[in-house]
């Protein structure tokens, strides 16, 4: 039985995280081989995950750590 696109979308996040079982993974893989749409959705979702994890997207405010430890120092003495 072939799974449909909706079914694949439901599992895209789990698929990216390696959290689908072997049987479902191979079903999804087979679907992806022939479905350009789902394949593109998977790629773009994975790309988004990679991009948001990049340290350059979310950086601590300049001087954050210094201010935090200075405040802490006043508490510790």
């Amino acid at each position, binding site marked *: 039985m072939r799974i449909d696109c909706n079914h694949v979308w439901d599992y895209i*996040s789990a698929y990216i995280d390696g959290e689908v079982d072997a049987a479902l993974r191979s079903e999804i893989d087979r679907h992806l081989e022939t479905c350009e749409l789902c394949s593109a959705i998977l790629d773009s979702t994975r790309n988004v995950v*990679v*991009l948001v*994890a990049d340290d*350059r997207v979310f950086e601590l405010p300049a001087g954050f750590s210094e201010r935090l430890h200075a405040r*802490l120092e006043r508490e510790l003495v």
Partner: protein
Amino acid sequence: MKTAPNPDFEAECIRRILQGERHLFHDLIRPCERSIYFLLFALLRNEADAEDAAQETVIKVYRNLQNFRGDSQFRTWVLSIARNEGLGRIRKGQARREDSLDAITEEQGGDYTPAFLTSWREVPTEALERKELGEILRKAIEGLPAIYRNVLMLRDIEEMDVKETAAVLGITEGSVKVRLHRARALLQRDLAPRLKGFAPKRAKLFGWGA
């Protein structure tokens, strides 16, 4: 999580701090700083509020250190304190924000159909050097409903596992997975069409050559 927790180091540190070597608290808390800040930023959506709440959290952690029992990871315990600090501020209306508490704690319905596109296949990581891409990503994440933003921040940005994320947010592991899936789906739908324009170079991570 950009720094891996080290339970042995933490336990030793805590023991010595409680015995009077208070200065060691700086080293104990340092690996948690980033996660504390971004958890609070996800809740409060304001840099100044998040920083103030982060400082307050760290002071509370220090004052309550003797109450840490070691039955969870130290960072999980710390982040629970951070979350309570953030929620407390929202309740008191100290934070300038739009979400109600309900929006932070309750599941929402909605449409999570992905963006249909076939042409954004390349990831332009070096394009992150360009400020505008980072800005687009940050805005998109900040625009997510709070319950999804919080989970995405811990799972995909701080790289915590499902179990710890569930413990910090006080939700089930199943909810973490559902919310993460929806967060990513919403981001994909929002970002994929707009990020196509950032893929002019031959650098890529996934899907190159299709």
